[in-house]
């Protein structure tokens, strides 16, 4: 039943033009960056910057909007003898598959064509995980409230917090406590933000030489090792699973 719901949602989303526009936007950005510069590494750096901003934003806003737009469909499904777990998971699978599809077409394909390398693959994987975690967050934001405007507002706040404010706070924290050995604490703090986790995984591929200097070497040692990569992947998965569990908990008990 879960997959049936997912299928309906995928077809519904594919009919809309918003996702098509998103795909095109990503594809145009990536291709033009690669075309404009002969240096592939520089292209990857620019794409990282763009990707870490746009992908979470579109994922969270689109998923939230879609959730509220299909609210009546949800109400209809709830009246049927289908478990709420299946309903929400079906929605999740449907929405995330379609947004991932857009990501694959818009980002993965250009990267595979122009810059197929370990760095490229890391970017594809982290981008995909980032998409999924922000859709999870979108579900959490949507289930927490009933009001569409509030939901979207909350989604935007979440994005704003993770994309910009969080790093600002980290910088402030570093300024205040710069005299203390913060290396280990930083690893813990960074894992509180899925965007930072994604960024660091990519960074390890792009700026290896800078990371080898001063304190960077320590991070390089940790995140560069098999254990560190496993650690950051698991954390990214947690960022997908935990908001989703929270959303499910709310959704199961919610009076629609």
């Amino acid at each position, binding site marked *: 039943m879960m997959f049936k719901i997912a299928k309906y949602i995928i077809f519904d989303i594919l009919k809309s033009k918003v996702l098509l526009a998103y795909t095109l936007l990503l594809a145009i950005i990536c291709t033009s960056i690669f075309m404009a510069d002969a240096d592939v590494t520089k292209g990857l750096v620019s794409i990282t910057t763009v990707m870490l901003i746009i992908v979470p934003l579109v994922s969270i806003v689109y998923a939230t909007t879609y959730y509220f737009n299909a609210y009546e469909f949800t109400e209809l499904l709830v009246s049927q003898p289908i478990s709420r777990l299946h309903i929400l998971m079906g929605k999740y699978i449907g929405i995330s598959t379609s947004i991932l599809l857009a990501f694959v077409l818009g980002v993965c394909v250009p990267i595979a064509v122009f810059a197929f390398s370990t760095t490229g693959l890391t970017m594809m994987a982290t981008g995909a995980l980032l998409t999924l975690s922000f859709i999870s967050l979108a579900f959490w934001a949507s289930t927490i409230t009933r009001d569409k405007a509030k939901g979207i507002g909350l989604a935007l706040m979440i994005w704003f917090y993770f994309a910009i404010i969080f790093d600002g706070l*980290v910088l402030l924290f570093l300024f205040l406590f710069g005299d203390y050995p913060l290396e280990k604490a*930083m690893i813990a703090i960074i894992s509180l933000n899925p965007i930072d986790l994604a960024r660091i995984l990519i960074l390890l591929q792009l700026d290896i*030489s800078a990371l080898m*200097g001063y304190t960077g070497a320590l991070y390089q040692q940790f995140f560069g090792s098999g254990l560190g990569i496993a650690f950051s992947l698991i954390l990214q998965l947690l960022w997908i699973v935990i908001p989703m569990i929270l959303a499910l908990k709310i959704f199961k008990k919610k009076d629609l």
Partner: protein
Amino acid sequence: MRVLLLVLCLFIPEMLISRTIVVAPAGKITSLKNAVALAKDGDTIIVKAGKYNSFNTLINKQLTILGQGYPVLDAGFKEECLTITAHHVKVDGFIVKNSKTGAMRDYAGIRLHHTAYVTISNNKLLHNFFGIYVSDSRNIQILNNECKGSAIQMESGNGIHLWKSNHITIKNNYVTGHRDGIYFEFVKASLIHHNLSEKNFRYGLHFMFSDDDVYQYNTFKNNGSGVAVMYSKRIKMTNNVFKENWGSSIYGLLLKDISYSQISNNNFIRNTTGVYMEACEEISISKNNFNNNGWAIRVLANCINSKFIANNFIANSFDVSTNGTLNLNHFEHNYWDKYEGYDLNKNGIGDIPYRPISLYAQIMEQIPQSVMLMRSFIINLMDKVERSIPSVTPESVKDVQPKMKPWKNL
């Protein structure tokens, strides 16, 4: 007839003087030591292939010593292998190995002391404490040798070690597994070219108090601490490659107290720091390529009047960083891949200056832990703001005429 006799008289002593002595494991003379004892100045000793023990064989006569088929001179970790004290000696085509290691004395594979016009060529020096050790000498040629150290840190001296010498040529050598690849102290007017120094424990090239030397077409790759040059004047380093020297406080090229020197047409690729300059004066850094380094150039505030002209800075995490707010060095006509200006009159030169020191580089200077925020949105934003309205970064460091396109053929 008379003429013939005269000619004969001229030649016979010549033939007598320049004898050839053959050393072979199964021959009449079975060790180099005996051969040297028998020889006179100007003789040639030919050593046939085989294994010979050589416990500090002293060469105190003008001899040409040639190895055929790489005979092995083995010091068995007991002594030095060869010591040359005579002028006009040539040692060619040997495998010299297993010199003693020691904390009190610098045992070497081949030692040259107080000599001149000596050529050491086509030898393989394996597992020696020091490979070739030259002291108090002049006009020495060290060509086409291969120095492979023991690759054990405690048992490694320098590959090619020179002390208080002048007019030395070091060409086409390969040094690996030693402490310092090539080490100079008080060496003047020497030429070092086409050497490859890699995977040494400390520096690929290390020199101090060595003025007027020229380094060309060398490659220094993946050494423990890169290349360090200190307290020298009038150095010329051109067409070298500094590559893959990685780690904290490891530099492609470290310059300390260097003055009136020229560094041009070099390639700095994938180093943690490409060039590090401390207390340097009047250095011209031109036409170099800086690719994929963490920091392309780190120039401390106590460096003055250095010129950075017509270099390429491509894909470095940071182009330039410094520790102070005032910097008296000059940047001109460089290509910076991070430059975002425009060129309205299409003369190939950007119309607005480029500031190679970013705000984030300054932050990193104070809080190294902030490396974790590299390439985050907030950092990019702050850099953009700082570039348009500079307040924290040193105002003096700017390239007024940045190139729009990279320099070709560097």
